[in-house]
């Protein structure tokens, strides 16, 4: 894993995780900063240029570390929350809302995991009905495991809190760390998939479909709960056949009966983010397609309810409905 530089906030320079990361990236220029805002998301920065050679920023997360998850974000199992120990992702998916959310493509890693854990405990204490904590909203939780030690830190933490569920969203095949642990019942590893052609076209730097399926298979066989997220669904000619093939490939490798959950969700993002994406990639065909807008959210005109229903019909020939939810 190579970074064009490592910026370190002075306040966490001596933090154990910071020291560990510095040792791992020896040879990379290290620059001390006061606050990560000095180098991240400054006016005039350009995501597309920075994505060519992103830097790693080690910072401290201040304020609230755990936030309520949007309605319909996950499988209903209790009150949903998300936490972002990292901003931005190793991959470069052309549809990703992060490109529209940040002007900077550098990776920000908040090393004060202890504060995230305190935030998780606080929310769990406040809700007797059970809680789900989603990781991977603003990043890919597994992709940078050798650097971030995310699983290494959070799996033992959740192992001691069986009433709270951790869902890790990812497109990564970095499952070695998870496989080194005994599986825990309250952790779900959720992998996102799009049909192979769509993945090749838009999911730059993402491991191949087959490699990801094999990684999930290893986890499933080892006893980890795995989930499948078929999103974002991008409506276009031939898409139903593409999904039929994807379902067949997926459930040919993974045991559908042992899956934690399966979901479908269409390509949608806030209108302002879409506008920012268009400015970055005016020549991108995906972003030139006809869109519809509802409550400030944009989705493709070639999609919508009819397409999702058609895909759901096909999906239910592989997976029991009780394991399914539609991602809002």
């Amino acid at each position, binding site marked *: 894993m190579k970074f*064009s*530089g490592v910026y370190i906030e002075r306040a966490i320079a001596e933090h154990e995780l910071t020291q560990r990361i510095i040792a791992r990236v020896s040879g990379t*220029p290290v620059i001390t900063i006061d606050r990560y805002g000095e180098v991240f998301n400054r006016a*005039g920065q*350009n995501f597309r240029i*920075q994505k060519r050679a992103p830097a790693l920023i080690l910072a401290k997360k201040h304020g609230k570390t755990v936030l309520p998850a949007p309605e319909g974000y996950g499988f209903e199992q209790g009150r949903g929350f998300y936490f972002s120990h990292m901003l931005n992702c190793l991959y470069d998916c052309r549809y990703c809302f992060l490109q529209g959310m940040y002007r900077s493509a550098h990776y920000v890693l908040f090393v004060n995991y202890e504060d995230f854990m305190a935030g998780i405990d606080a929310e769990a204490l406040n809700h007797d009905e059970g809680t789900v904590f989603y990781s991977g909203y603003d990043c890919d939780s597994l992709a940078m495991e050798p650097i971030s030690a995310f699983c290494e830190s959070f799996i033992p933490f959740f192992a001691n809190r069986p009433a709270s569920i951790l869902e890790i969203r990812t497109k990564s095949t970095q499952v070695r760390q998870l496989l080194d642990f005994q599986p825990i019942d309250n952790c779900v590893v959720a992998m996102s998939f799009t049909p192979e052609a769509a993945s090749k076209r838009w999911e730059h730097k993402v491991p191949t479909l087959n490699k990801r399926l094999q990684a999930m298979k290893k986890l499933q066989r080892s006893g980890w709960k795995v989930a499948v997220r078929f999103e974002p669904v991008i*409506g276009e000619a031939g898409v139903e056949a593409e999904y039929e093939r994807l379902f067949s490939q997926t459930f040919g490798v993974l045991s559908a009966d042992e899956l934690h959950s399966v979901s479908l969700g269409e390509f949608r993002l806030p209108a302002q983010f879409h506008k920012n994406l268009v400015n970055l990639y005016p020549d991108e065909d995906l972003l*030139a*397609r006809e869109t519809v807008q509802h409550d400030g959210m944009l989705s493709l005109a*070639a999609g919508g309810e009819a397409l999702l229903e058609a895909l759901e019909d096909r999906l239910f020939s592989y997976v029991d409905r009780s394991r399914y939810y539609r991602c809002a």
Partner: protein
Amino acid sequence: MPIVSESVLITLVVALPAEAGPLKDFFQLKPLRATNNVFQSDQGIRLLVTGVGRKNLNQSFARFTRSELTKASQQVSPAWFNIGIAGHRELAVGEMMVANKISCAVSAQSSFPTPVLSGNNYGEVLTVDEPELTYPQNAVYDMEAHAFWDMALNYGMLDLIQCCKLISDSPHDGVEKITAALIDEIFYAASYEIRQHVDLLRNLAYEQQQLMSDPAPYLEIADRIHLNVNQALQVRRLCQRFIALNRESELEALLATEYHSARDLTHILRESLKSAGKVIEE
């Protein structure tokens, strides 16, 4: 393959005529009109010679921006690159250092160029008002970089504002030994790296200019009919969308049909894209 560009893609900024000499040679830069401190090539490269120190740099920029940058938007380059001699307590004379932090000794403010350039040495450039003879910090000492950064921010793209320094003096080789011949020698020895940095920044600037440039069909329309600001933005994006969707021939056909106003045209283009957008399955 050299980029031939009518517009300026990168502006190199140096303090001394002795630093400018080799650069004029590397990039075939010619004096710009009546100026004696601005040079330009037909490959999108411009050079500004400012004089030594923050004050001279600020004055040169002010004069330059008044006389040149107001003339046409294409004269404002996205990339700005400060290159020049500087001192360091450890690095040997002739070594190059890419700035990843630019600080001002007077104001104690720091800025952080995006790590776009790669090299053997990276570090902080500390801008001082008098030549530094004792090199107390582990930084490269110069006299313009921070002022350059502040000025360039007004015109360039933040990620394409860069700075690198060539070591001319150190505790073992004091500033009194710096001569025009030494500067010439240092610049020529670093010519490969300098060219690489300039080429990279120029290419990135070119890519950005291409992305921001108006599509050809839009320019034809704007020539033919009057568009107000809002219509211009809409028609421009509609043309971009046809091109991105690989439907240029359809756009040409639509533009060849009769339309009576900008509103008519916008409607025709939008409806055409809308009808195609609804097709999912054949």
